[in-house]
Structures are given as C-alpha cells and as structure tokens.
C-alpha cells in the first residue's frame, strides 16, 4: 500500500504544468525603511499551490528576510490574513489557480492596523476591541449539579454562523469605517458579541448590547459588505451586525 501511494504523486506531478508567477510584495523594514516599498519576486508555481506556498518559496529560496505570520497553514489559526490583489484573504486558502496569473499578484499587509514589518501588523488594537465585548459565557444561574446547561438544536442554530470566527482580522481590516476611525469596534468584535448575545445559556446580552450601542458601536456600520466578502470562514458578517442592531432597537436579543 505504501509503495502505491508513493508512486502516484510522482506520476501526477509530471503531468501538472508549472508556470512562473510574479508576486509584488509590499515590504517594510522598520530598521532600514522610512516608507514601505514594493518588491517583486518571480516564483515557479503549480496551479494547486496557494499564495502561502509562494511566500514560503520566496522566504526559503530567495529572500530570507521576508516576514509574515503563519501557523497552521490550513485556514484555522487565522494568522496569515493579508491583502491579496486588494482583497483581504487568508494566504493559506487562496489558490494560485483562482488568481489571474497573467498579471502580477499584489500582496500587502492588512490595512488599518499599525504595520510592524513586511506583512506583519500589530494586532493589539483588534484584540482590545474583541476583549471589550466580553467574549465569554456569563451565566447568572448555576447549572443543575452534575449536569450541563441544556440547549436545543434551534437555540444553537441561532448563533451557529458566528461561532465560526477565527479572529484573523480580515473583516475588521477590510472595513472602510475602521480604516479612518480606529475607535470603531469593527466587524470581528461585533461578530463575537453576536455569538454570546444570541446564546440561550448566556445572561449578559444586555451588557454587550449596551457596549455596542456606543457612539463607536454598531451604528457606525455602513453595510458596505466588505467584511462579508473578506471572511475566510464564510460568516455573513453584515447580517450578524444587522441582527445586533435590531436587538439593540428591541432592547433584548
């Protein structure tokens, strides 16, 4: 069995054509550069490769100083959100075959957060607004001793979409309101508030609704749908924000 599987990839690899793709990457070295600069790299790629593989090839074979975050490389850890051809995407979920390789592929750091180096930004303001919405279960009643808190399928379905968030910041840094006004909570914080506001086991929905009914809260949302487009997990972010708006108007989830 093991011999069969080792033979198979070799046969397919020769069949898959490779091609040269140009990447133009926005570099910034805080020790040397006053301003970020664009640098291009030619990389030999397969259509099945991802943008992250290209970054790896550049870092490992061409320029070891290229700096970017990545951890699991499978779209779960949320480390490698970046702006690819002007759209916020996870580098590990963007396939080369889905991009127009007749033109160079532009890769830059996500916007609206302080740039630290190359594709790495300071995520602290993002996590600060995440913490402000109290993203943890707060129940005022104790569960029956030795039992869990029971939730039926329908009540779980209510907030299922927003449980998928991986905090990659792709949505928040695609939001034009966030770009100009760093005080705005941003889509990701509202999505994570939504996950607890509509959880039947949670009793602090009112606290979170009050927090988001702020001058810099949900009302700044202009329903541009950039966040829904950017979300690598397919969360309907704009819909979640609208549901929080409606909950604030009703005064209860």
């Amino acid at each position, binding site marked *: 069995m093991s011999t069969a599987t080792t033979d198979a990839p070799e046969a397919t690899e020769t069949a898959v054509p490779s091609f040269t793709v140009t990447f133009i990457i926005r570099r910034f070295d805080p020790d040397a550069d006053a301003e970020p600069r664009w640098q291009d790299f030619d990389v030999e790629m397969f259509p099945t490769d991802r943008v992250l593989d290209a970054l790896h090839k550049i870092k490992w074979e061409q320029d070891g100083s290229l700096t970017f975050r990545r951890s699991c490389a499978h779209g779960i850890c949320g480390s490698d959100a970046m702006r690819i051809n002007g759209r916020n995407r996870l580098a590990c979920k963007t396939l080369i075959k889905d991009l127009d390789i007749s033109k160079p592929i532009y890769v830059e750091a996500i916007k609206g957060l302080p740039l630290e180096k190359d594709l790495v930004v300071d995520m602290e303001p993002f996590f*600060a607004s995440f913490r402000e919405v109290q993203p*943890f279960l707060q129940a005022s009643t104790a569960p029956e001793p030795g039992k869990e808190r029971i939730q039926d399928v329908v009540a779980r379905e209510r907030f299922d979409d927003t449980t998928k968030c991986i905090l990659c910041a792709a949505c928040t840094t695609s939001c034009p309101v966030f770009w*100009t006004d760093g005080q705005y909570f941003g889509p990701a914080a509202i999505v994570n508030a939504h996950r607890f506001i509509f959880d039947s086991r949670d009793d602090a929905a009112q606290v979170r609704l*009050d*927090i988001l009914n702020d001058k810099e809260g949900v009302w700044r949302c202009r329903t541009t749908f950039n966040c829904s487009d950017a979300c690598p997990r397919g969360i309907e972010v704009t819909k979640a924000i609208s549901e929080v708006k409606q909950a604030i108007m009703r005064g209860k989830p």
Partner: protein
Amino acid sequence: MTTIEAPRSPSRPARRGVNLEKWGWIYMRVSGVLLVVLIFGHLFVNLLVGEGVKAIDFGFVAGKWASPFWQWYDFFLLWFALIHGANGMRTLVNDYTNPGKVQTTLKVALGAAVVVLLTLGTLVIFTFDACPAGSPAELLPSFCPAA
C-alpha cells in the same frame, strides 16, 4: 507588582444620555422610506400629470403653493431630504478627515448651511406671494389682477 483588572470591568465607561449615532441611523432609515414616497410623488405630479414637463413655469409653482397641501408636501420634502443628505455628508466628513480642527470646521459649515437653507426654504414655502401688493405692474406675472 502588576495588578490585573477584574475581567468584567468595562474599559470604556458607559455613556449616558441620547445616542446621536443611533438616532441618526434610525432617522436615515425612516426618512429614506418617506423620501421614496415624497420624491416619486413630486416627480409624478410635476413631470407626468397633465401637460407634463412643459407645464412647469412660474405660474405652475405659484399655483401649487397656493394650496396648503402642496406647501406642507414641499415642507416635508425639504426637511427630510436636506437633513438626510446632510447626515450623509457628516458620515463622509467622518470618513475622510481625522478628529481635529478640520473636521470640526467642516461639520460646523455643514450645520450652518443646513440651518440657512431650511430657514430660507421654509420661509419661501409659507410666505410666497405671486402677486405682492404695491409692485410695479410690468414685474408681475400675467395672471395677477394688478397686471
């Protein structure tokens, strides 16, 4: 020694009083729906009914404003549309400027323009007189008794 804050203490103090962002948002939705009705009604009556667009002249406007219904219709159209547009401009100012002197100046100028236009517009709608008494006859429109 560093102290760790209690996990549930809010880092922004809770705000008191009226939330203008919220009411601004609600106003945009409500006035938007009303404006669809008002604007299409306005266009229909002015451009399609009767002789259509050719009918619009000084006398047409004077005739409309002789009726309290059209006075109030245009009053609501003016107030809803101007404040709706100004609030949209305010969000644009928020988008394209940073908090500071420029932003404050732009917002004050916007507010002043709205107040002036609303005052003048309302004044014209309710005090409009097509045939003011004591005017020279050659300046009056043909349908005035003095002309």
